């Protein structure tokens, strides 16, 4: 493979990862606040369909993106209401919503099946796009891909560098401690769940109006993306930079599955297509293995130098979830 093809391929990976980046960032914000939005898989499909339908009807592509965000936010609002106000199980509500949203989008999306619709055009950044290697890799994309780059750093800076971001960590970690510091825990949880939902909802039209333009019902190939994004959120240790890295890793594995097909004729193409999913799960297992008690016991039995190094590596990789994830907050 020559450099040219490689650069184009990698640029394609960044492009294809954009919707996953949106989804994992949205989920990260929501979970940082203590709410698991399990509706993500259905929410992405529904917003893809809704975004496409609106863009198709109005011929305004940006209305399509806004619709997607509104759908994601609306689904998240249901999750928030059920879990924060009604104090019901986030898992049960999210599961039902994911199924309902998915089937609803197949049903409502019927009239738009296979219609040629608008598609986001690419936007080279003058000057920057001409830099060798970096230009074609980073600066010849469409608007949503640029947004995906931007949002990674915005989300990271917000969570770790700003005062409200610290409080966001606080409400997901120990709501009672955030409360004594003056936070309105439940209102903030609503805010971040809905904001996160809007980002998840942005992933949908990024598929249907850009990455996999069009609406093709059950063969749109979107079912399952939400679940993988959910696991990437965990893999990412609730940190936007790590989560984005996970999203790119997944897109890279998918791309490799395609480009390696010709050079690995013995392996059926289906295997290569499915491989990214188990590979992601293996990565997840490896990253979080330090949490298990048996690992700690094995470590304790190791000779001292090995133990120290291994423990350090595992400690660096390991991420612990926000302690109050999924736990409703009640003022005493």
């Amino acid at each position, binding site marked *: 493979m020559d450099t040219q093809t490689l650069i184009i391929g990698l640029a394609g990976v960044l492009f294809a990862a954009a919707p996953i980046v949106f989804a994992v960032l949205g989920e990260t914000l929501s979970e940082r606040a203590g709410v698991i939005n399990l509706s993500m898989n259905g929410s992405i499909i529904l917003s893809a369909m809704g975004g496409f339908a609106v863009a198709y009807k109005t011929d305004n592509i940006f209305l399509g993106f806004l619709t997607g965000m509104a759908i994601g936010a609306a689904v998240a609002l249901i999750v928030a209401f059920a879990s924060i106000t009604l104090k019901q199980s986030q898992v049960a509500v999210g599961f039902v919503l994911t199924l309902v949203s998915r089937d609803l989008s197949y049903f409502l999306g019927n009239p738009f099946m296979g219609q040629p619709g608008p598609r986001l055009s690419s936007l080279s950044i003058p000057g920057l796009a001409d830099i060798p290697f970096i230009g074609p890799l980073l600066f010849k994309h469409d608007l949503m891909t640029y947004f995906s780059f931007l949002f990674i750093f915005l989300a990271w800076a917000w969570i770790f560098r700003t005062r409200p971001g*610290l409080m966001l*960590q*606080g409400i997901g*970690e*120990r709501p009672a401690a955030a409360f004594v*510091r003056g*936070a309105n825990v439940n209102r903030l949880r609503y805010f971040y769940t809905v904001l996160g939902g809007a980002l998840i909802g942005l992933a949908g039209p990024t598929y249907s109006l850009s990455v996999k333009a069009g609406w093709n019902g059950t063969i749109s190939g979107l079912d399952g993306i939400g679940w993988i994004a959910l696991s990437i959120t965990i893999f990412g240790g609730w940190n936007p930079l790590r989560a984005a890295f996970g999203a790119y890793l997944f897109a890279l594995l998918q791309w490799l599955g395609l480009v390696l097909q010709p050079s690995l004729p013995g392996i059926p193409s289906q295997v290569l297509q499915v491989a990214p999913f188990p590979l992601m799960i293996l990565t997840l297992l490896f990253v979080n293995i330090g949490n298990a008690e048996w690992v700690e016991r094995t470590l304790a039995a190791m000779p001292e130098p090995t133990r120290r190094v291994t423990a350090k590596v595992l400690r660096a990789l390991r991420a612990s979830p926000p*302690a109050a994830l999924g736990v409703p907050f009640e*003022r*005493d």
Partner: protein
Amino acid sequence: MNVELRNIHKHFGKVHANNDIHLNIPAGTIQGILGENGAGKSTLMKILSGFIQADSGEILLDNQPVIIHSPADAIHHGVGMLHQDPLDFPPMRVLDNFLLGRAGGLFPDRKTVARDFTRLAAQFDFSLDPDSYVDSLTVGERQQLEILRLLWLGARVLILDEPTTGISASQKEKLFETLRKLAGQGMSIIFVSHKLEDVESLCGAVAVLQAGKLVGEARPPFPTKKLVEMMFGREISLGARQAASSGRSVLELRGVALEDIRFQMSGIDLDVRAGEVIGLAGMEGSGQGAFIRACAGLTRPVGGRVVLNGRDLTGKSYHVFKHGGVSFLPASRLEEGLVPGLSLTEHFVLAEETRGIFIDRTAGHKLAEGRIKAFNIRGTPASPVESLSGGNQQRALLALLKSPLSLVLLEHPTRGLDIESVIYIWSKLKERCKQGAAIVFISSDLEEVLQYSDRVLVFFSGKVSKPLEASKTTVEQLGNLIGGKDWESLDLEKAHVKK
């Protein structure tokens, strides 16, 4: 800052948690608040710190009546509270914990904050690294961080809830020194504790709460005896006791060491003899829970040996202990002891170790009827366990015990039960002793401990006393010991007892 509480009332359902409390704390005072668990100390402090609101009554700060809506509002008025388990964020850095909650711009100015932090820490000679993570700090250091934070936010009244639980002796010294210094600067310190020793060495005034009421106030020199009496209430009477037995050893602990999140215990030696009752006394969370779970095989000791009926079972699982004739009745009957949703019949069937996968309903029903009668349980075989009263749940648990047993471990066997149930349960337990079982139980009722035990172990902050002969111990002595006083006299007494 002067703090005055007037006519504070607070109800939780039927419980009158605070009943007409008046308290006046002049600026510069260290005010101790003493009381048993559940006496209403925490409720009162939560009212003052804005966590909850009083049903009626007034709070005056520097003679101005104030209404405190929330903890954030409280600190706004200058009232800060240090919780027993400091309310901080363990996975975050010290500096982030420090600055979180203070108003300011979008991007906190960490440099200025760090300077404030270092300056404040230096004032009190605290050595805290602002860049370290809170989960790497000890409880004592986390308290120091919280104190600095509250001072930085402008606290003029500092409430400390059981601050000496889980910190080392040197950290305690430092804490006391800090509090004296703060009081010297005109702050009011409210020190909530059940540890007499701490209160007596630190406080300039003490108020005792009992069952929601303020039952007394005192100033130094403190009448220790009277304080103990006020804390534990009623006149205490000891009934007749039965002769201590001296059967063979059922359980032997040899140099057992235990670890809890809060403390380490080591070097525990004990022989529990057949037919004997051993009471474990101590304020809640002093180590007796970890101890009894180690006897049950539920927690693994970090050192020493646990020998049951001559077999070394150190590190073996609860099932091995159970097969060896040990039974454990935890305090939380519905969470750990019984299965909510299942009926009495189903419980008895489950407890019987029968073969086959199908349940013989008729036999189960008969079994349940028999046990219900034998143990005088108010309920039917079909009653779900959660519908029974506490006393009847406890009877059901006793009815579930296998026979024969060599060791019965009980946690608060009679907590919350009416006197009739208490007497009944102890009569059943004494029957077990006559059959050769040994009993080890935890209770916070000192009278019960002395009444029913042959020997008593006292726990205080992870320290374990030598076994005391119950017949030669008074409630006052025991009260002092669980409050952390008079431990020096123990060695002498032990020599005396062992002879």
